[in-house]
């Protein structure tokens, strides 16, 4: 028997974006149902976050914020608009019981890499405490919550995907009982977080926790006909070698952590001698990846961090510290080796549905917020930009659903989707998850890798199509838990294909986006949106210019340089 539910606003995903979207929609008077495939408050990136909520406070130099969070692809006027909202969120979360680090009753802020001023509000008990307090605030406002239901397909008024009508809800299954859930809503808000290679193995270059985010929402929105953008901008990330925890950079770098190679040399000398450890993130990612590829064992050295600061760090990033200590023992005695994560992820930057600042996608009835969107080109998936886009979307949705009708999906669509969802449980002659998962991971590490090239991307796309058509589509699941993994992989390969196509489409390099066949960093041609849309069963890609108003007040300096990786290669050759 299927579970049928009706609501005004369906929020899919309970990270910080979904939490704020649900809260604001509820505040506007709507009935709100928040559905999470995991447990709201413990799920997604938000609950595992590394302890820092960068937030503007009244009296800050707005221009310093714009410079710190700017960049060629950032919508600066929207950043300015988001600043007071972050402050409001810090205070609201304080009332909900988030344990911010304080001096007396005053919330204090610390510095962070790549920024010239103290902007980070620290969580005294890390992300897990923050999200449980947020959960309490959201549930207290009357939002209904459904845990352990993975939604896998959007439902539409015309029963079609892509739709010419509107999105009217979503369908999925309970990850323990396998029960089908059919939810109809006046508005659907997708907040399913970034997409990553699901279930990466420790020690690989495939990423870190949360290990179950596979881009479900992005794939669903793509099938419904939504335009996607920013897919090509994910790229490299970092994590401690052999562990699945985050890098913890926001709190470790300003605390005096150093980056050293296997001989104890601070190798950032070679990359950004002026700012060293406080260099911008993308350059740091690149430097670590570069050192690691050269066999230099790049490691985080905490030996000079003061004991008092170390004590605070243990509370702010308990997951990171626990994982690091499990690897090397006492952190004050031994550096921790780090690894990088290759392509095939949106990391924390945000990539997915193109949205307006009200969270509208290009499909009626379908809204989205947080890291499964292009975040209307805010600087990326820091917690505040996710909570802000969630807030704006929730308000817009709350206002829109008031007198709206709740159209129903045609019964045939529900029937068809239900059968598709359950198929892997019924298949008798299909393949198992692990070999296919392994093949896909190896494809990413070996054929896509760190330095991209059109020929290798074409080969990878060919193999990916083969994996998708012949292996993923034939996977079997023994129980609902496995069904969730199978569905995650199926969603992931679709988003990955769109991403590899977007990588292929770009003809410039940037700091952490490295094209061997286009080695020039070209700020002029870089400034555009690459849009991807599924049409007639195929992907269509095109460029759109960025509105000039987005670069006001800080215009982009036109530069054309050879990317550092290729400059280094030339230098290496000359030295030989």
């Amino acid at each position, binding site marked *: 028997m299927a579970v049928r539910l009706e609501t005004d606003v369906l929020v899919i995903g309970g990270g910080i974006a979904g939490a704020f979207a649900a809260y604001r929609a509820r505040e506007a008077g709507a009935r709100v149902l928040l559905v999470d495939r*995991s447990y709201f408050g413990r799920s997604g990136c938000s*609950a595992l976050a590394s302890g820092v909520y960068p937030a503007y406070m009244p009296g800050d130099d707005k221009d310093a914020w714009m410079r710190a969070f700017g960049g060629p692809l950032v919508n600066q006027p929207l950043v300015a608009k988001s600043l007071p909202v972050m402050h409001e969120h810090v205070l609201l979360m304080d009332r909900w019981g988030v344990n911010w680090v304080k001096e007396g009753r005053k919330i204090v802020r610390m510095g962070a890499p790549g920024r010239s001023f103290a902007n980070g509000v620290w969580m005294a008990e890390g992300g897990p405490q923050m999200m449980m307090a947020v959960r309490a605030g959201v549930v207290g406002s009357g939002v209904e919550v459904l845990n352990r239901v993975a939604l896998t397909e959007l439902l539409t008024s015309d029963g079609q995907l892509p739709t010419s009508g509107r999105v009217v809800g979503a369908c999925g299954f309970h990850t323990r009982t396998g029960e089908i859930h059919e939810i109809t809503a006046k508005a659907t808000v997708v907040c399913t977080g970034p997409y990553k290679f699901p*279930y990466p*193995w*420790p020690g690989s270059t495939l990423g870190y926790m949360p*290990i179950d985010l596979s881009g479900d929402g992005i794939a669903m929105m793509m099938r419904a006909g939504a335009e996607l953008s920013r897919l090509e901008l994910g790229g490299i990330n970092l994590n401690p070698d052999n562990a699945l925890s985050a890098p913890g950079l926001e709190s470790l770098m300003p605390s005096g952590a150093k980056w050293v190679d296997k001989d104890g040399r601070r190798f950032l000398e070679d990359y950004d001698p002026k700012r060293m450890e406080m260099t911008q993130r993308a350059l740091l990612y690149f430097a670590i990846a570069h050192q690691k590829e050269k066999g230099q064992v790049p490691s985080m050295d905490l030996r000079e961090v003061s004991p008092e600061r170390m004590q605070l760090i243990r509370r702010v990033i308990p997951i990171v510290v*626990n*994982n690091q200590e*499990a690897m090397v023992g006492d952190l004050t005695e031994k550096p921790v080796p780090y690894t990088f994560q290759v392509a095939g992820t949106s990391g924390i930057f945000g990539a997915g549905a193109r949205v307006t600042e009200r969270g509208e996608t290009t499909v009626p009835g379908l809204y989205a917020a947080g890291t499964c969107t292009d975040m209307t080109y805010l600087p990326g998936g820091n917690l505040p930009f996710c909570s802000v886009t969630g807030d704006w979307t929730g308000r817009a949705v709350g206002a829109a659903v008031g007198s709206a009708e709740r159209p129903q999906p045609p019964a045939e669509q529900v029937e068809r989707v239900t059968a598709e969802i359950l198929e892997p449980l019924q298949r008798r002659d299909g393949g198992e998850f692990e070999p296919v998962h392994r093949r896909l991971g190896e494809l990413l590490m070996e054929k896509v890798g760190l330095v991209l090239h059109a020929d290798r991307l074409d080969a990878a796309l060919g193999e990916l199509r083969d994996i998708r058509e012949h292996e993923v589509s034939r996977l079997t699941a023994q129980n609902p838990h496995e069904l*969730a993994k199978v569905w995650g992989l199926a969603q992931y390969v679709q988003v990955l294909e769109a991403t590899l196509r977007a990588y292929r489409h770009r003809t410039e390099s940037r700091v952490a986006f490295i094209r061997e066949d286009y080695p020039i960093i070209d700020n002029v041609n870089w400034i555009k949106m690459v849009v991807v849309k599924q049409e007639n069963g195929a992907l269509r890609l095109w460029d759109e210019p960025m509105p000039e108003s987005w670069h006001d007040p800080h215009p982009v300096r036109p530069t054309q340089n050879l990317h550092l990786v290729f400059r280094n290669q030339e230098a290496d050759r000359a030295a030989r």
Partner: protein
Amino acid sequence: MPLVEVNGNACTGCGVCVETCPTDVLRLDADQKAFMAYPADCQGCFVCQWDCAYGAVRVHINDPASTSDSP
């Protein structure tokens, strides 16, 4: 591979860790003790250890029994 060790004497079977584990690794066995039903899906996040009010859970990040290159 991380390993979650449950102290059967301390576990009351309250089910909290089973409810909150982000990747849904844990279940209660016939004796109402928590155990890793899906050990391959543990991400070593320590949530179960923190959420257990009875101190019954310990997370080991590197389970010595598993090889490092196993998925």
